């Protein structure tokens, strides 16, 4: 995946960390200390459509750009910037009755993004 940096307008993964202490949730969530709610943002022009994440190479993009340009009118859209790799979030927390509960929530942390 491509991590968002600087002024890149291409589809990338934007890191966003939620600190449980900052939002006042550290009293009932024991572990971890926060949640990496990364998300995907950016454009998926035609010439990178269908090239999810790290598989995209500069050479491929350029070739595709040539093909796309020769196609009549390049229109944006039709391809979205979506997660291509995710991992679960393991939580250890107190429930209402002060029991300690451990839960693994699947697909909660975005690891990589790409164009669908």
């Amino acid at each position: 995946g491509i991590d968002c940096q600087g002024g890149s307008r291409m589809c990338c993964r934007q890191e966003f960390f939620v600190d449980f202490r900052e939002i006042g949730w550290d009293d009932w969530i024991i572990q971890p200390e926060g949640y990496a709610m990364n998300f995907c943002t950016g454009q998926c022009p035609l010439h990178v459509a269908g090239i999810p994440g790290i598989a995209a190479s500069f050479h491929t993009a350029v070739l595709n750009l040539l093909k796309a340009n020769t196609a009549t009118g390049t229109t944006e859209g039709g391809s979205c910037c979506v997660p291509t790799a995710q991992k679960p979030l393991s939580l250890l927390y107190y429930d209402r009755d002060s029991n300690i509960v451990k839960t693994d929530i699947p697909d909660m942390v975005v690891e990589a993004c790409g164009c669908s």
Partner: protein
Amino acid sequence: TPRADNQCLVCGEPTLDLESQRKLLLNLAKRSILDKLHLSQRPILSQPVSRAALRTALQHLRGPPQGALPEADRGQEYEIISFAETGLSNINQTRLDFHFSDRTVGGMEVQQVRLMFFVQLPPNTIWTLKVRVLVLDPHDANFTLATQHLLEVDASGWHQLFLGPEAQAACSQGHLPLELVSESQIAQSSDILGGAAHRPFVVARVRVGGKQRVRRH
């Protein structure tokens, strides 16, 4: 990423300033976690949980504390088998001696002792047998009774009898003397001796006390 006209690329809404965007994302994160935990709101703790309880729960969760050896490493467990040597016996009383060399049980913790024996009985009979565990009386070097077990054997074949701590102590000292007393005429205690293929034996499960390592015998 704002477009030239300051509208969101994806939804076309006007873009948010950073602080508003941050609030939106934090709320989104809260909602996402609560939904996945099937909670309508965050739990309100009615009574605080002690740190000790929390530490215990975390230890359970993570398994043995770092650095603690797993059970097997804390001391290897062995089973040591000793076949009976026959001592004095008469019609209804038989003496069995089981020996363990210092080299095998020295420095070991005997955790369990089983007597395994074979009997051949006529069908539909019940043979009552008393198994006595003897100990050496330090004063007069005679054997005295430490404990006894009453058995009712109702079938031919191999049988086992778990012996108590007295027998474990005797094994750890290297010598376990037993006395079998037949309580009925069905069979004689000496029948238990069987042939070479059916000689009684004792299985002592021991754990190396960490002082020395002994290979399995």
